[in-house]
């Protein structure tokens, strides 16, 4: 690769854009600000494309690595890079940012300057989270994302925005401070039992994982668990999510569902599993239990919702339960499926929030009972919604199916009981989505206000289109996606199973003897 610091460029370009808007643009020039913000995110997406094309699929380790010493006193470096686990998330982020910016043109009508500044800063925070290979750096980015999101919900949110904003902020902060405790414990455990140096360097710490005694691993795992599980959010830490989603502006919801939640699941794959292999095995039943409760509970609660956005929010709880189930199957198929499902969820739930935003902008209501028979007035909207809904359900041929299928294989390999419960979730998922679709789009056009509804305009179709294309692409030909992730996923699975390997070998011998 050339020496260009590509990842740094991708990460900090939005922040640079934010600074330029802040310094050089007047708040009255809303058109210029929108145009400039769009240009920044589009450019950011374009320069992130080499990550897709130049990515070496056979390489399990980190690519596009950059490393500069940052705070040598405590062993912190600016160390970034991507592997199969993060490459698609980075690309998803840059893509989602375009969607997020473009979908806000008409939805946000006040304080545009600050709004786009917040969006761009948020982009930097999220990208940084996915590329950081130094735990300190990761934590810094992880925390930084809270601030712009807090503003997005709190300033441009719905009626209960203040409550939702502070709840989101405090809930996730509470989790991440405890995670910090875990990070520090690991940092010193490495100092005492591992390499003997004070370092936050992830690659060095990876080697230490199995050497740390199980009792300490369990404590650290709990700390990581609280931090990431709140972010995901796993049952029972999910209560902030519906509030945040419902009150956030459309772009905020899209980014929250599409990217921010993935920071939690990504955290498990990147940190919890490889750094704490033995503890991860210990926690499998517990994690699976919570995931399955999340899947079923999220689906049941979603079914009972009267607000479309809230329904989608609860469906996220259910979908992320699937992701977590896949990850904690701790085998290749499961983790791979979980990884793919993260991307799928980002695409389909993001699209669902966008669609909800589209009708909300026109009708200013999200109550299911206010709609009905929409398919007669807004055909294009209906078609896109139908595809998205089916992708979310997991219809074969669309993206959701591939991810869920892999997760189920992974879960089945672990225990057929896990898989059996997860399947209930899929059925329920189909139920609430189809029921929603039926109530909103079919039936009679009872409400006269809906008759005047206009269909999606060109801009809306334009930003939904890439998502729809991706749904088909991943659904019909997932190989480029799975191929990019496979090597790294295998590596993670190998790392997490390193502790079990001797046991399995011993078991194998025994069975041979019996024969």
């Amino acid at each position, binding site marked *: 690769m050339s020496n260009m610091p590509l990842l740094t460029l991708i990460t900090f370009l939005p922040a640079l854009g934010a600074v330029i808007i802040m310094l050089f643009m007047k708040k009255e020039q809303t058109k210029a600000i929108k145009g400039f913000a769009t240009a920044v995110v589009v450019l950011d997406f374009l320069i992130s494309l080499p990550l897709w094309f130049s990515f070496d699929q056979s390489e399990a380790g980190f690519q596009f690595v950059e490393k500069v010493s940052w*705070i040598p006193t405590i062993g912190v470096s600016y160390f970034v890079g991507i592997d199969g686990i993060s490459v698609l998330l980075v690309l998803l982020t840059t893509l989602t940012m375009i969607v997020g910016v473009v979908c806000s043109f008409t939805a946000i009508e006040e304080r545009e300057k600050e709004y786009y500044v917040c969006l761009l800063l948020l982009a930097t925070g999220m990208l940084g989270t996915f590329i950081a290979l130094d735990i*300190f750096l990761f934590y810094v980015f992880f925390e930084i994302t*809270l601030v712009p999101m807090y503003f997005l919900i*709190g300033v441009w949110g719905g009626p209960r925005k203040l409550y939702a904003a502070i709840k989101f902020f*405090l809930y996730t902060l509470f989790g991440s*401070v*405890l995670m*910090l405790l875990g990070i*520090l414990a690991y940092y010193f455990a490495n100092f005492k039992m591992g390499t003997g140096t004070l370092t936050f360097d992830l690659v060095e710490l990876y080697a230490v994982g199995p050497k740390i005694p199980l009792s300490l691993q369990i404590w650290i795992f709990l700390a990581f668990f609280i931090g990431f599980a709140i972010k995901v959010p796993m049952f029972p830490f999910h209560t902030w999510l519906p509030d945040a989603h419902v009150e956030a502006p459309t772009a905020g919801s899209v980014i929250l569902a599409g990217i921010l939640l993935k920071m939690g699941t990504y955290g498990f794959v990147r940190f919890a599993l490889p750094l704490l292999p033995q503890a991860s095995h210990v926690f499998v039943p517990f994690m699976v239990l919570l995931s399955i409760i999340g899947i079923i509970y999220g689906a049941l609660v979603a079914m009972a919702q009267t607000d479309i956005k809230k329904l989608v929010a609860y469906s996220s709880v259910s979908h992320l339960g699937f992701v977590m189930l896949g990850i904690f199957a701790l085998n290749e198929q499961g983790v791979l499926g979980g990884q793919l499902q993260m991307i799928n969820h980002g695409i389909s739930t993001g699209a669902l929030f966008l669609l909800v935003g589209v009708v909300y902008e026109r009708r200013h209501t999200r109550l299911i009972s206010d709609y009905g028979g929409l398919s007669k007035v807004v055909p294009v909207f209906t078609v896109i919604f139908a595809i998205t809904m089916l992708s979310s359900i997991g219809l074969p041929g669309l993206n959701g199916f591939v991810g869920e299928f892999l997760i189920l294989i992974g879960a089945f390999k672990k225990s057929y009981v896990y898989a059996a419960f997860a399947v209930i979730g899929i059925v329920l998922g189909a139920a609430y989505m189809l029921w929603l679709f039926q109530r909103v789009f079919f039936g009679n056009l009872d409400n006269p206000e809906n008759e005047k509804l206009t269909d999606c305009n060109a801009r809306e179709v334009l930003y939904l289109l890439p998502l729809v294309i991706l749904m088909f692409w991943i659904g019909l030909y997932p190989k480029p996606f799975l191929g990019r992730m496979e090597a790294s996923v295998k590596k993670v699975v190998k790392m997490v199973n390193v502790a079990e390997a001797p046991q399995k070998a011993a078991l194998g011998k025994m069975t041979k003897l019996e024969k």
Partner: protein
Amino acid sequence: MLEVVIPDIALSLALPEIGLAILVCAVLILDLFVSIENKSRVGVVAFVGVVILALVAFGQWGGGARTTFNDFYVVDNLSVFVKVCVLACTAISILLMLQYAKVEKINYGELYAMLLFSVFGMLVMASGNDLLTVYLGLETMSISIYVLVAFMRHDPLSREAGLKYFLMGAFASGILLYGMALTYGFCGTTSIRGIAEAFAGSGGAAIAQNPVMIFGLILLVAGFGFKLALAPFHMWLPDAYTGAPTPITGFMSVAVKFATVAALMRIFFVAFPAMAERWNTLLWVLTAFTMVWGNVAAIAQTSLKRMLAYSSIGHAGYVLMGVVVSMSIIDGKVTFSDIGISAVAFYLLAYLFTNLGAFGMLILVCREGYRGDNIEDWKGIGQAHPWAGMAFVVFLLSLGGIPPTAGFVGKLYLFAAAVQNEYYWLAAIGLVMSAVSMYYYGRIIMVLYMENRGETQEVMSLSSAPSLFFAMVVLVVGTLLLGIFPGSFLDAAKGTVAGFI
């Protein structure tokens, strides 16, 4: 025949203090010749003098521990660090003061003189190598600050605050002195190293077990607890901080902590390692209690200044946590870790920029008859004054410990020290409380940006004084710099350990 021995006194070691004494006299004399409208000039002279002295003090960095005045006085990296920071804090406080003093009609030369007197006390405390030196410094500092707190004579709140602080402070000094007296009774010396030797010598173990000595130690802890406003000795603080002129509040909250913590570390780490387990347990409880109390009580406040006062109680708890977690017992031997001491130093430095900045925001909006003290007054300021709003957000995030600010690195370093020496519970309490603290800091951000201004609300305008503007820029830059590139500052903080333990 009586032999007179003239001790060899290295006066150069006390250069900052001597210079400061001269500066105070110069300020007092200058005050006589400056007309009442131009008293700010006195402040400017004080500012320039303090900056020069800070450079002088900085020149003493490195070179290990050097004692003078017959071992009453020590210059090491810790004392130099504290002195430079205290002087920097003073310089910024003077900048914050210049405009404020005019607005509040307290622009007298004594204001600056008293400020410098208190700084003199702090420098002596930082270098005190004897219980008596520390005590003298402490009293010089305290008495000057009692006066400063009550400086707004026309304001009953300020008078009440001064009186309250004076009564509680005098009481605390008494307790502290009693503790010192008991120590002297057992050890036969007031020298800090001498006390350590007495404990280490034959019979030292018996002294350490003596209930009266333990009582003396408790008195010392309580005395310092009062001065640092650790819960439950914090009752004076909210009133004193609220009533005092705002720049003085900011100055107190930072500089007093610096000096007191330096003296506390020197006394407990150097003189009392033999009783470390006892004072450590006491301080552990005080720290936990302080972090919880300060942060929880701050939530209920409606006055911004009072909220910041409670938050500074919480921060005193964090600083003290660094002191507590410095101690660890390795193979039955008490040791003090570098990382704990340097974490305290760095945290205080971060706190200097952050907290002065937060109080600076209050000064920025202060005008005649309007203090903008009610949190509700700040509604919509983020839109009306975007830069000021952003500066405030930076300070609040730093106080709450959110990256990329000084407060984050400071807290991280503190908690790292706690985890290293396995004070997991204390670290957990501290971390949870720092999440709690974001509730009330976040509420201010909410008021600034997310709530709309009422129709009838008085318009808030910002002072345009260049001195104030300059000070605020320095504080914002400092807060961000320490958060993004803390490297060299961390090294400096680490350097404080050299020659100390």
